[in-house]
């Protein structure tokens, strides 16, 4: 550790807080540049820093989460295709192209930060087409189209690596491991994968090494002694990390930062998982040697968090159920609190979890109004997982690592958050089919039987799609980045998507629950019971999207039925029934190839996108309007929007197999001003989990501020909200996404 000379001690030295403030300003500046160059960004606020203006090449593409976006490419780089379509497919071609990108990727060093590195482009944006046209699936298309499935074919990442592998081996060790197993697994598939993995590591080493050189060059020119010293240290650390594993806390963070930003660059992959556990030995060692103070640790963590918003779990049980919260858990929270930028930090809440950590998390929510942290019902996710036939010890190792999802680090392939069934689209298909059959007496109950039939078909078709994905993905766009830190891919010579890891538990989420529940309830009450309208007339009104003389009144009539989420309404019962049906159908059998599927209820923020596919629905929703969000009721489900009512219904509809149905909740700061506000919300969170809940995404937002920011986002460049599982700058969102957040807050 650097000792200041006597002379240096007498100079004005920048404090850690001053340096954090500088990091924050730089982040705002980068965000501003992205707003100007890209426009709205309806996804995680990744730490991407745009290339220099003269190197920027704007294009239209699809994001890692399937959203159409504008993206900026690096002019100096172009892809070398291995296919007539212009695409790049298979481990060798992908690996060599990615290596080339890393080798000419610019360096990034902020002398204020203790860590180097930022990524400038998304490799995936160069891959066009993303799916090999030789590998078409016309046999699956009709069902995909019929039910508007989100089938997950070609989905990338969304499972969790085991960082401890990298922290132990370093890049040199990983390269050795590849070389070792290359001689054992000599089949073509394995050899191709090794070529891809090796190219990736060589590219990574090149990029890191160049940061070492660049930091040394900058140090030579730096006049401020404190920053010069910092740059000298950055140079030394990174020259070392080209091959060696990290030894100190700062080196550990630097190593993880490389891994994560390279994951983001490659395919948005990489999670922090249990970072408070993984880095704890480094922290303890440094503390023991008096090389590190907590203030310094917070600063290093802030230097990290400003560049990477990956998902992490703080605290929570070890495999024996003993809570693992430590000093570092608190320091991570503290660093995010001081930064006040988007961050995806989950605090574990369970029977044995730390009350203090939960309290601190809620206090920070109240202090910052930045939707951070979120809260994880760790007991219910781990116990739920055992219902798939796994032991509880394994369930506890399945940790929070992405938007709404958990995975076993390095051992499980999941397709989390990538495969969805739009319940409302299936409902629309069922309703059309049902009303075209003249032999059936129209009633909500009979419609439900028809719905069940279609939903079963939709689930089965999705399962076939996932099998297809697992058959071909390795040869399309393999997980070269995540494979490096998984147990198995290198050892077996198989991509994680193709038998490389131990467990395959494929995520299948439902979206649009409230839309369908409210639709059934409205049909039952207004048509069956009150007989205010014939089914035929309703169908015409839906087809006309509620237009025409009586249209609006009929819409309001259907809409004014007591809603899902209100508590004790028939719509609640329908919601519970539909969630159960979906769960049962997913668990009825594995995919045709025998892979386990796990049901969840989550739409991500794609409920806006999915709504575009669905015509008017009997709950009074207009054609193309968003479907409901996750397991949440639609805004306006109760006049008072009672958070307890919300927590109750979301707890009841949980599928309960270890994947989540997150509660999304917005609270007024009025709650916070109460003297016992923190205690109250702590109790609220605990109670939701005791009732069966799995995850809480909380925003504490001032209505007036959000409304003002919606009108003029530029006035609030620093306003952060939790959009869904992810958090982002409010001003970065498209008008549609902002509307969704605003509607939730106003509950209208």
């Amino acid at each position, binding site marked *: 550790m650097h000792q200041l000379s006597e002379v240096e001690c007498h100079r004005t030295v920048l404090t850690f807080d001053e340096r954090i403030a500088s990091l924050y300003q730089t982040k705002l500046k980068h965000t501003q540049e992205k707003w100007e160059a890209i426009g709205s960004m309806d996804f995680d606020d990744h730490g991407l820093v745009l290339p220099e203006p003269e190197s920027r090449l704007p294009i239209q593409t699809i994001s890692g989460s399937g959203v159409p976006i504008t993206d900026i490419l690096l002019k100096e780089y172009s892809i070398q295709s291995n296919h007539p379509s212009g695409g790049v497919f298979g481990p060798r071609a992908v690996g060599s192209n990615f290596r080339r990108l890393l080798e000419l990727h610019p360096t990034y060093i902020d002398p204020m930060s203790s860590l180097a590195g930022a990524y400038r482009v998304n490799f995936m944006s160069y891959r066009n087409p993303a799916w090999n046209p030789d590998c078409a699936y016309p046999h699956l298309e009709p069902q995909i189209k019929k039910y508007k499935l989100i089938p997950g074919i070609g989905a990338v990442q969304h499972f969790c690596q085991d960082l401890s592998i990298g922290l132990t081996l370093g890049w040199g060790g990983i390269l050795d491991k590849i070389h070792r197993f290359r001689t054992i697994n000599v089949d073509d598939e394995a050899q191709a994968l090794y070529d891809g993995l090796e190219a990736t590591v060589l590219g990574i080493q090149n990029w890191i090494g160049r940061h070492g050189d660049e930091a040394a060059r900058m140090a030579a020119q730096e006049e401020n002694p404190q920053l010069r010293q910092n740059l000298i240290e950055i140079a030394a650390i990174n020259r070392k990390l080209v091959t060696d594993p990290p030894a100190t806390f700062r080196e550990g963070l630097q190593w993880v930062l490389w891994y994560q930003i390279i994951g983001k660059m490659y395919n948005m992959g990489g999670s922090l998982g249990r970072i408070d556990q993984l880095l704890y030995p480094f922290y303890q060692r440094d503390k023991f040697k008096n090389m590190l103070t907590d203030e310094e640790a917070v600063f290093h963590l802030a230097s990290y968090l400003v560049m990477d918003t990956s998902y992490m779990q703080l605290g929570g049980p070890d495999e024996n159920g003993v809570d693992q919260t430590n000093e570092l858990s608190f320091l991570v929270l503290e660093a995010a609190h001081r930064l006040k930028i988007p961050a995806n930090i989950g605090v574990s809440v369970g029977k044995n979890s730390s009350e203090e950590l939960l309290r601190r998390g809620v206090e920070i929510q109240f202090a910052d109004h930045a939707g951070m942290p979120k809260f994880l019902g760790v007991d219910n996710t781990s116990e739920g997982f055992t219902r798939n036939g796994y032991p509880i010890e394994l369930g506890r190792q399945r940790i929070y690592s992405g938007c709404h999802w958990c995975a076993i680090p390095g051992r499980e392939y999941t397709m989390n958050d990538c495969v969805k069934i739009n319940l409302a689209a299936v409902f629309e298909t069922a309703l059309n089919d049902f009303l075209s059959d003249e032999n059936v007496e129209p009633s909500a109950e009979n419609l439900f039987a028809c719905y069940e039939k279609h939903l079963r078909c939709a689930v089965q078709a999705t399962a076939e799609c996932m099998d297809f994905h697992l058959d071909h993905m390795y040869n399309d766009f393999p997980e070269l980045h995540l494979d490096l830190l998984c147990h198995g891919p290198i050892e077996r010579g198989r991509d994680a998507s193709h038998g490389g890891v131990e467990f395959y538990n494929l995520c299948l989420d439902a979206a649009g629950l409230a839309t369908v529940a409210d639709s059934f309830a409205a049909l039952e009450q207004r048509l069956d019971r009150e007989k205010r309208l014939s089914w035929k007339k309703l169908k015409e009104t839906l087809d006309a999207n509620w237009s025409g003389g009586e249209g609006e*009144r009929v819409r*309001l009539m259907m809409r004014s039925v007591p809603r899902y989420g209100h508590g004790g309404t028939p719509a609640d019962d329908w919601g519970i029934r539909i969630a159960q049906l979906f769960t049962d159908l997913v668990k009825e059998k594995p995919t045709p190839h025998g892979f386990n599927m796990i049901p969840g209820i989550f739409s991500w923020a794609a409920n806006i996108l999915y709504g575009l596919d669905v015509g008017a629905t009997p709950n009074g929703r207009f054609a193309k309007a968003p479907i409901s969000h996750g397991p949440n009721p639609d805004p306006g489900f109760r006049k008072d929007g009672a*958070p*307890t009512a919300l927590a109750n219904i979301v707890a009841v509809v949980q599928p309960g197999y270890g994947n989540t149905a997150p509660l999304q909740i917005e609270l007024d700061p009025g709650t916070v001003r*109460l003297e016992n506000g923190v205690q109250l919300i702590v*109790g609220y969170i605990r*109670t939701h989990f005791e009732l069966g809940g799995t995850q809480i995404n909380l925003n504490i937002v001032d209505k007036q501020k959000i409304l003002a920011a919606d009108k003029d986002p530029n006035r609030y460049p620093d306003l952060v909200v939790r959009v869904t599982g992810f958090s982002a700058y409010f001003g970065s969102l498209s008008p549609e996404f902002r509307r969704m957040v605003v509607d939730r807050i106003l509950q209208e």
Partner: protein
Amino acid sequence: MTGKIFHIQRFSIHDGPGIRTTVFLKGCPLSCFWCHNPEGISVSSELLYNPDKCIGCGACLQCCPNGVHLMETDQHILQRQNCTACGKCVQECFSGALEIAGLTLSVEEVMQEVLRDQAFYSRGGGVTLSGGEPLMQAAFSRAILQSCKEHAIHTAVETCGDVPWRQIETILPYTDLILMDLKLLDSDRHRAAVGRPNERILQNARLLAQQELPIEFRTPVIPTVNDGEELLALAGFVTELKQMRTRAGIAAELRWEWLAFHRLAGDKYKSLGRAYRAAALPLMPLSQLQELRKRVEREYFL
């Protein structure tokens, strides 16, 4: 047994400790002109009409047996004196413009709603009866409170205090906390502001203070009504009660809270077709209120 309820609010966090459900009972002996639950004052059910939500579909005109709704030159007019609050028009109004304040519910129905949030009460929350004045329906209130206690739910009663003592007495065995309004010490001014003198209220406050039961007195600080010396007078009274309690060896807490005046009830008055006199009152800055509070605490060691 049934009673008349105009609202059941879940996740109620301003009427007693923790997360609560507040049951609002209809009818109040007082008529404070600033009341922010004006739909709770009358004992009878009332029709609420929100013109902003009305889409002018005319369904209410057709179904009302008493011709209450009229459409005159595109203006929707209500002849409220003819309305029996039968609720027929509400059933036909899908826009949410019409509502009935005051539903007759059984104890079981109220409890069904209350029990939905039972899990949330266990960390210091519970149920609060409010209104209106819950003790205008003392037997019904008592039955709800009793049922809450059978379910081990913490109970609070928010009262204006202007009811016979024997009615208060009936609920005490099932009540864990009393929230009681104190507005003015001067009876004439009290009558002028809320329509009734205050002797009975003060007497009940003294009797309550002698019970081994936590009490929170609450004073809505209303500009022009009790925003100055009046508070000092009330402070004297509260101090007297506290001393009385100490002498009697009562350990339960006695608190005195002030509630800031707001002018947010305008829409409710509009829905009832009544004038909102308090709209003309000035707002008192929070700092001024805090200043006052400090002064009172200084002078009265509260």
